[in-house]
């Protein structure tokens, strides 16, 4: 079907990576110090995502009227901005796009288990995601960006959640897929907590032979650990700068 050779016999992918290589990962925190309590910017290859976190606060601006605050933990609300220019072909998405709604529910449930709930009873936390450019790995980028923005907002987490997508080309697992690869291959996005082997979220929407799953997941876990290191490094750099200023 595809005209492009996604994985050459020499073992190179369309963008010149090997099967187990991540795309260039750049991240920054505290990018919008005045606009929000916590903010982050994540760039995985050509995918760019911005995340703003407001909270914990008494009233969430995004909360639907009548939503009660929970005595056992915060109420998370998540809003995804996917502007028409973000994908390669200009495409306008309705505000109630089912796929984005699903992703936001998945992310919400994922972070409800990662935030130390008991510290934030009866509060609201607003998370605002903006996609600037999308070249694959939507859910993974979102997940990494939220983790960083929550850390920047000073919200206590048990550990980092890092996520990456892994696809399968014939017999070879490919780490961190770009949009071209995502279009033609089936892939699974997994999110890992800290340095453990524990999966917080998995999302696979295409057909995948069951016996290959184990290899994909183990490759994904490795990738997630690497991303976690990179994010941790950036958080420490930002922390150091903060200390110097004081």
């Amino acid at each position, binding site marked *: 079907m595809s005209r492009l050779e996604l994985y050459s016999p020499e073992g190179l992918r369309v963008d010149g990576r090997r099967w187990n290589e991540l795309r*260039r990962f*750049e991240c*920054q925190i505290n*990018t*919008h110090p*005045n*606009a*929000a309590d916590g*903010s982050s*910017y994540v*760039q995985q290859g*050509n995918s*760019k995502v*911005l995340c*703003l976190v407001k909270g914990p606060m008494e009233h969430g*601006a*995004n909360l639907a009227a009548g939503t009660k605050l929970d005595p056992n933990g915060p109420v998370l609300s998540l*809003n995804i*901005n996917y*502007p*028409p*220019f*973000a*994908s*390669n072909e*200009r495409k*306008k998405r*309705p*505000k109630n796009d089912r796929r984005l709604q699903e992703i936001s529910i998945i992310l919400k449930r994922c972070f409800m288990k990662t935030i130390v709930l008991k510290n934030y009873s009866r509060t609201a936390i607003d998370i*605002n995601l*903006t996609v*600037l*450019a999308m*070249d694959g790995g939507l859910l993974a980028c979102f997940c990494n960006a939220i983790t960083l923005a929550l850390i920047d907002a000073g919200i206590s987490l048990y550990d980092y959640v890092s996520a990456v997508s892994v696809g399968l080309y014939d017999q070879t697992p490919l780490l961190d897929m770009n949009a071209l690869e995502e279009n033609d291959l089936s892939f699974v996005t997994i999110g890992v907590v800290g340095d453990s082997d524990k999966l917080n979220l998995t999302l696979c929407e295409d057909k995948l032979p069951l016996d290959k799953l184990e290899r994909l997941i183990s490759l994904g876990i490795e990738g997630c650990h690497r991303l976690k290191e990179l994010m941790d490094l950036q958080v420490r750099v930002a922390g150091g700068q903060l200390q110097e200023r004081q």
Partner: protein
Amino acid sequence: MVLSTAEKSYIYDSLAGENSTRTDSRKNNEFRPLKAVCSFVPNCNGSSRVYNPDGIECITSVKAKVIRTKELSDLINVDVDVEGQRDNSTLCLSLSAMIQRALVNNFDFEVLRLTDKYYFQLYVDILVLSVPGDFKNSSYTLYSLLSLISMGTYLALKSAKLPLLTSTTNDREIEEEPSFADDWELATDLIPAESKFQPMLIFVVGLVGSNVLVDPSLDEEEVLESGLCIGYCQGNIVAPIQSVALSTADGKAFNRKLLTKALETVKQIGQPVVEALESILNTEVDEYGSFF
């Protein structure tokens, strides 16, 4: 923003008098500090991000598409999306329509011409982010974003690059679809450097007493008697010139003198703003650099 009567009258008195003092001690014709970067979205032809220290931020992208048309006004499409507002809210629709009309009226369509039959069609998408909570109570005040949006559009248009046309420009006799060079290094600017054409800018000024205030802040907006948005293009005042509701307070009538004064002010500040924007365009952006 809710101000008490005493606060309002204090701000009004300090603004309306002969020697006006603004709440943030700016001059009457001074903008709040703004920062901007451009060309940072890889899959757009042009992009820009203009933001002020309050956190309000305006991300603009320009995408081009080859179409075959005779109707020039179809060539520019503007879409404004304000965070927290529905797509079809009056605010988004009127902002989109206003910018689109202003662009179409003052556009040099020659730069979009590819061949005799084919043109580039531009999609200008504007995203306004991190709107402060105060704005959510009244959608009117958001019109003050107009100047921010127009600067974003200016930068995005000026930074836009188009692939180099390799096929012939004359296709009146021969039917041929335009083809382009694959190499992005050869890309040309949408608006060539030697072209005199500049996209228009829209300035928002507030009128109070006998004074004209550029870029009124939130608390100033509360006491303004009227708001004006004025188009500026290549040294001239252009349409749209219209009064906008900057605050929830009802706009009052203003006299002719004040209007002339407002137009003069915009003529004065227009050139420095254009120069400032040009200097941003000339700053090289590192593809993987930090934009934030």
